């Protein structure tokens, strides 16, 4: 007992020596008090002083997390975006440095100093260089069946009509004081195509990436809320009851040739749209050719999911207090919802116009699916159609304009890039 007691005292004395001797030796050079105050000063809480806007942004990120988790608003993207927003607004964390991407360029020289570069800076390079949106389009292509579009090629017109909203919003944004590049980026929200919106904004107006991404994905999640009132207001009960002719069977040869030739045609006419269309159609070819099943599965699942995480976090990271908390964000949100509504309305109205000239009547409700929120917009057409006529199945008919909208929005994006890029 005595022996163990003396051992304990020896141990204690030894530890005391280890800690005390160096401290006493350095006492003249460094003050412990300074070190402790420096440590407390490096804490995020200490840096909150005079930086209360960060707190507001953290609250905004909490609201978005709530919408993603509880309300299930596009959770696959909104959740990483909200978390990226949270990470970038934590004072002192230093995960994202907007100055590395100031004036729309990547300042590669500053990347050499690893101490001043955060994790999200590296991840953001994928957005800035346009890598993630294109890789996501690869997955979108692999998940898309162009069969309904090939069976009813007239659907392309509805997909094109819905893109009118992009250019109408472009005008509206210009009138509200945005620059051409910013107006183009805001207009593309009307295409209801997240990766395209991010791709265009990262090229034209990277300073608006945060608000535009949040607006685009929030409104895409709100398609079932925004579209039905517009669809009902613009159609009569009789029009909503129209039953469409069953679609023809599309051969495998057509499905294989389609992506190859579409890529060639669009890339030759509009080279600026080549990265997006090329990736979309490559993904589709992997799916349809039947000999690359492993690659098709990979781009549909693993690659797409990895890119979605990186894209979400890095886009959320751009939503710093200075770039997000300003009147411009509010205007973008208003213009975004207007663009969405206009896109839906122009699709429905164009479908009605087509009925004037066409023998085989089409249900105007499928026109609203021309905005490319795949497959949500097509589902909304199906649901509204079934409210009027429960035995009517519009889903496959609406998928045609829906996937045509994806191609239409990439073409519109290509035009904007060619003029404003």
């Amino acid at each position, binding site marked *: 007992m005595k022996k163990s007691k003396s051992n304990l005292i020896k141990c204690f004395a030894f530890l005391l020596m280890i800690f005390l001797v160096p401290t006493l030796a350095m006492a003249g050079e460094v003050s412990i008090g300074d070190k402790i105050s420096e440590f407390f000063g490096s804490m995020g809480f200490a840096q909150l002083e005079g930086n209360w806007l960060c707190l507001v942004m953290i609250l905004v990120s909490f609201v978005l997390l709530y919408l993603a988790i509880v309300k299930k608003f596009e959770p696959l993207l909104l959740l990483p975006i909200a978390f990226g927003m949270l990470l970038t607004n934590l004072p002192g964390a230093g995960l994202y440095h907007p100055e590395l991407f100031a004036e729309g360029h990547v300042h590669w020289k500053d990347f050499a100093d690893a101490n001043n570069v955060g994790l999200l800076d590296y991840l953001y390079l994928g957005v800035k260089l346009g890598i993630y949106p294109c890789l996501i389009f690869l997955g979108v292509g692999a998940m898309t069946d162009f069969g309904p*579009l090939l069976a009813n090629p007239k659907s392309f*017109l509805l997909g094109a009509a819905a893109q009118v909203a992009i250019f*109408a919003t*472009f005008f509206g944004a210009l009138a509200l004081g945005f620059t*051409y590049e910013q107006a183009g980026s805001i207009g593309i929200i009307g295409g209801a195509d997240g990766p395209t919106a991010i791709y265009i904004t990262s090229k034209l107006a990277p300073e608006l990436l945060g608000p535009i991404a949040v607006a685009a994905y929030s409104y895409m999640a709100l398609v079932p809320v925004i579209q039905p009132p517009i669809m009902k207001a613009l159609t009569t009960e009789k029009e909503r009851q129209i039953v469409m002719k069953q679609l023809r069977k599309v051969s495998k040869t*057509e499905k294989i040739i389609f992506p190859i030739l579409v890529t060639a045609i669009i890339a030759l006419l509009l080279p600026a749209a080549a990265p997006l269309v090329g990736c979309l159609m490559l993904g589709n070819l992997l799916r349809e050719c039947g000999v690359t099943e492993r690659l098709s599965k990979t781009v549909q699942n693993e690659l797409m999911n990895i890119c979605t995480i990186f894209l979400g976090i890095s886009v959320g990271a751009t939503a710093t207090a200075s770039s997000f908390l300003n009147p411009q964000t509010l205007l973008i949100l208003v213009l975004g919802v207007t663009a969405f509504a206009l896109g839906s309305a122009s699709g429905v109205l164009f479908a009605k116009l087509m009925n004037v000239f066409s023998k085989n009547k089409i249900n105007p409700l499928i026109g609203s699916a021309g905005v490319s929120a795949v497959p949500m917009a097509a589902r909304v057409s199906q649901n509204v159609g079934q409210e009027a006529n429960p035995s009517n199945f519009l889903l496959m008919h609406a998928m045609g304009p829906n996937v045509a909208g994806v191609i239409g929005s990439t*073409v519109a994006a290509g*035009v904007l890039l060619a*003029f*404003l890029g």
Partner: protein
Amino acid sequence: MMLLSIDWGFAGVVCGVGIGMTFCILVGLICFIKLLSWAVGLKDKKPTVEAKAEVKDDKKTSTSSHPTSHEQAAIALAMHLYFDAHDEEPHVITIEEVEKRYSPWSSKIYNMRNFTK
């Protein structure tokens, strides 16, 4: 003043060309799809040598003493209806019982995270 500083002519050109290009490209794609489906349909309709031989064989068999497969099916159905014959079912349901081997690696109750509801 702000509105006057904008070059609306350029904005109009962007919109006009944008809408025009979108419609033209997509209308072009409609024509292309129609052409493609026509070409593929033409290829499918063209009878191959094997198909032609099959048709010939079918004609031959229909003129010989043996009935064709369609005729055989029709005769079988007529006989079935005439004799009112039905298959007798044993009414015994046989479901193979699957032995489940639970182990800590496959059992759900050993999950890493237990959610309390």
